């Protein structure tokens, strides 16, 4: 289909030039902006990671002095969490939610523009700040023992504004703009998981803002929220931070659950098993995520009753998470599977995220956690859930919906190369970290005793390959967007087993869709 004529069916086509992007209120444009921004941040955060792995490849200090090394680990974490993963999911939400619920756009398009354009400003401020106190910025290291923190604090504030505005927009869109007949329990799972995620964001971003504000006044205005000598409490900081921080990890994984719940049924050619239980499991995880935060703080010293409570609550999360994994496996069971790139990434997700879930369950066991805590075992754990968890589903989603966005199929052969390179190298990188951690290597170490040398060397090799593999992804995406070949043209349904409103509109999706709401059967 000729896209120009489609545009003419509606009000107008896409404007030209830079102002199109600067002033856009179109959910697809804003979605693209978010996705490109997050990809740039992924490469930037990845560059920091390469620096870390280069330094740790051999014992001794070769490239970065310890302070710079601390800056690298800090910035790597902050950029990946706030710059790459979260904006990528918001970008997907922008592109997909209106198309999935049959809405013409997001409910609050101007705010949508604003919530995106705040991000590059926040990222710039973060880069100017370049703190070295760890992405968890524990007081008093961050408040009393670090230089200028104002840029860091305001960067976090801006990121918070952006997230909260994005979430309000998503909630308003989902609750008000669904096509007639689309009841809540008919909503696609990506929409459901994002609805719940948006509530999580609104609940915890203000808590983070509170933490950094107290940090700011402690540093510049003589307050003592976290300063023991002034009657404050450094442990309070950790409680506040992790009250934000634990829901935050679910903010980064719930939309991933949604994505996988779209892709696996498509390529299994079979309906998702247990839709209702998926919704309830997501809601249960979201609820539990608010009452487990102190499992990050077992070594801080807590009453036994407190430790037991947080241990039990944390273990409980395994139940709804297990339900999800079982549902995905049952969806595949007796399907008719094919293994295109999005499916490969989703299958890898189910395996490797579950692996991260297992180490998470082990970390919940408080007595053992005293040994695991702050070692590379934890580093391995959260990279399994965040890289092979969140990042893998973002990549899977990109491959899955790319034909809808661009109108062209990507190069499947290269996609498979990308998959195998990424999956092998990611395991070469992070699997040995379980061992380095168990053997006793603390995290955030610029240099380490010799017995950790072998595994660190392997991790570094894996990391370099993983990092470079993502450039292949960039090439595949650009080639797909720019392809003019007729044989690359995507059909409307794109995938044989794909179901949902977004597959009923043309490929590429016209600039404006669903000006009149579709019929929901």
């Amino acid at each position, binding site marked *: 289909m000729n896209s120009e004529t489609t545009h003419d069916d509606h009000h107008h086509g896409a404007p030209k030039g830079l102002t199109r992007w600067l002033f856009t209120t179109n959910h697809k444009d804003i979605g693209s902006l978010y996705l490109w921004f997050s990809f740039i941040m992924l490469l930037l955060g990845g560059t920091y990671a390469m620096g870390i792995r280069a330094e740790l490849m051999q014992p001794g200090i070769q490239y970065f002095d310890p302070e710079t090394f601390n800056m690298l680990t800090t910035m790597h974490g902050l950029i990946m969490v706030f710059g790459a993963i979260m904006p990528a999911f918001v970008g997907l939400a922008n592109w997909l939610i209106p198309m999935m619920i049959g809405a013409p756009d997001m409910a609050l398009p101007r705010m949508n523009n604003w919530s995106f354009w705040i991000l590059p400003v926040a990222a710039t401020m973060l880069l100017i700040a370049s703190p070295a106190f760890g992405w968890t910025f524990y007081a008093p290291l961050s408040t009393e*023992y670090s230089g200028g923190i104002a840029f860091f604090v305001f960067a976090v504030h801006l990121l918070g504004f952006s997230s909260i505005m994005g979430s309000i927009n998503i909630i308003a869109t989902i609750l008000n703009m669904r096509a007639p007949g689309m009841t809540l329990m008919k909503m696609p799972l990506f929409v459901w998981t994002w609805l719940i995620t948006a509530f999580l964001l609104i609940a915890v971003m203000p808590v983070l803002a509170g933490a950094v504000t107290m940090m700011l006044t402690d540093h510049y205005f003589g307050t003592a929220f976290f300063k023991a000598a002034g009657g404050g409490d450094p442990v309070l900081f950790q409680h506040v931070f992790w009250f934000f921080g634990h829901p935050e990890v679910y903010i980064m994984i719930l939309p991933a659950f949604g994505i996988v719940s779209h892709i696996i049924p498509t390529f299994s050619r079979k309906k998702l098993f247990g*839709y209702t239980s998926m919704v309830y499991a997501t809601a249960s995880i979201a609820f539990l995520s608010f009452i487990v935060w102190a499992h990050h703080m077992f070594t801080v010293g807590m009453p036994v009753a407190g430790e037991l409570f947080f241990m*039990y609550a944390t273990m409980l999360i*395994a139940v709804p998470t297990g339900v999800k994994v079982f549902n995905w496996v049952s969806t595949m069971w007796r399907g008719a*599977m*094919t293994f295109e790139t999005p499916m490969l990434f989703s299958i890898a997700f189910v395996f490797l995220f579950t692996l991260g879930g297992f180490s998470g369950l082990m970390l919940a066991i408080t007595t053992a956690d005293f040994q*695991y805590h702050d070692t590379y075992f934890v580093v391995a754990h959260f990279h399994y859930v965040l890289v092979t968890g969140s990042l893998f589903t973002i990549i899977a989603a990109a491959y899955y919906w790319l034909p809808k966005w661009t109108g062209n199929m990507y190069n499947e052969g290269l996609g498979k190369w990308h998959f195998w390179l990424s999956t092998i190298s990611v395991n070469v990188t992070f699997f040995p970290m379980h061992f380095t951690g168990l053997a006793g290597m603390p995290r955030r170490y610029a240099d380490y*005793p010799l017995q950790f040398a*072998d595994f660190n*060397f392997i991790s570094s090799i894996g990391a370099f390959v993983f990092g470079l593999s993502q450039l292949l992804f960039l090439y595949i995406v650009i080639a797909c967007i720019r392809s003019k070949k007729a044989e690359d043209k995507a059909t409307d349904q794109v995938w044989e087993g794909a179901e949902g409103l977004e597959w009923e509109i043309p490929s590429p999706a016209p600039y404006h869709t669903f000006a009149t709401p579709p019929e929901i059967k």
Partner: protein
Amino acid sequence: MSFKSLKTIKDKLGLTALLVFSGSALADVDPYVGNGATYDFPDPVTPLARTALNQHHESFWICVAIAVVVFGVMIYSLFAHRKSRGVTPATFHESTTVEVLWTIVPFVILAVMGASATKSLIEYEDTSGSEMTIKVTGKQWYWVYEYVDGKNTPLSKKGKVRFESHINADHKKASLNNLDVTKIKNYLVDVDKPLVIPIKTRIRFLLKSDDVIHSWWVPKFGVKKDSIPGYVNSTWAYVEKEGTYRGQCAELCGTYHAYMPIVVKAVSQAEYGKWYTAQKSGAGKVKIGTSKAALMKAGEKIYATKCAACHQAEGQGLGKTFPALKGNAMVNGPALEHITMVLKGKGAMPKFDDMSDAELAAVITYERNSWGNKASVVKPADVKKAR
């Protein structure tokens, strides 16, 4: 456990720099990580560490069992249920029975895990009935140990045994200057003065901090506890075997977080008694002569452990905060001001009044006569007068 296979990979990669250490890396390793095993917790030497190890193994094997079932089903499905085999997809997509089942079964498994974890945790956190107490203070970037009470320890302040434990300065220097570290024994996990404790004694550790949060961790003791400003945390250890046990700081505490290791020497109770008496009478203290050469020699060591973190190895200072001592007016000026500065501190400059007269004389003399500085020698008697 051998890493031969890994070494072959490396050899094949032909990275000569790595070849240098691959041969020695594992040969000289301290028992810190147990009998060469680098893929599991080190061998426990306390009941706590054994509990942690058991809990770790128990949860690990339960996870393995679950993984075998879930991944087994999935892998079978990935082979059997593929379109290329000409299967037609089934249409089922709901079953309340199985949903309930796979909610309840994991719950039961978790209850089993939780029960044994609860028992172990209560035992772990019981710090009562201790026979002696050691106060551990975390500082940027070293530990201070103080024997508070116990069978052999008087409660009075007088004669209290208290000392600092810094990383072996040679290790830190080798690390920061990118020297060949592969031949260094116990690289980065060696200190100038280890903590000495008796075996078969229930020891309570009280943890505090004077600046940021640190975390005192000895893997073989199964003990990791944060030292937090404003708090006194406690944990305990009952060491069963004599030996030297090593650990590291586990909470990011600033620039030299990786350079504040912990070394604990566990000795027989008789030997401990002897050591303790010697410490109390000051016999453990290093004697420093009063000649310029002796002061300079001792001063160099003290400077490296206590001052170089801020003023840097060559006295060149760091940024705007930490002044250079090289060519510094106060350092090249009258001795009294210099002594007072080090004794009393100022702003971010800590006070060092807990050092002995001889030690202070040594480090001050060293500063006054290094890096091109030329000023008077300071004798212990001068320091005594200035106190």
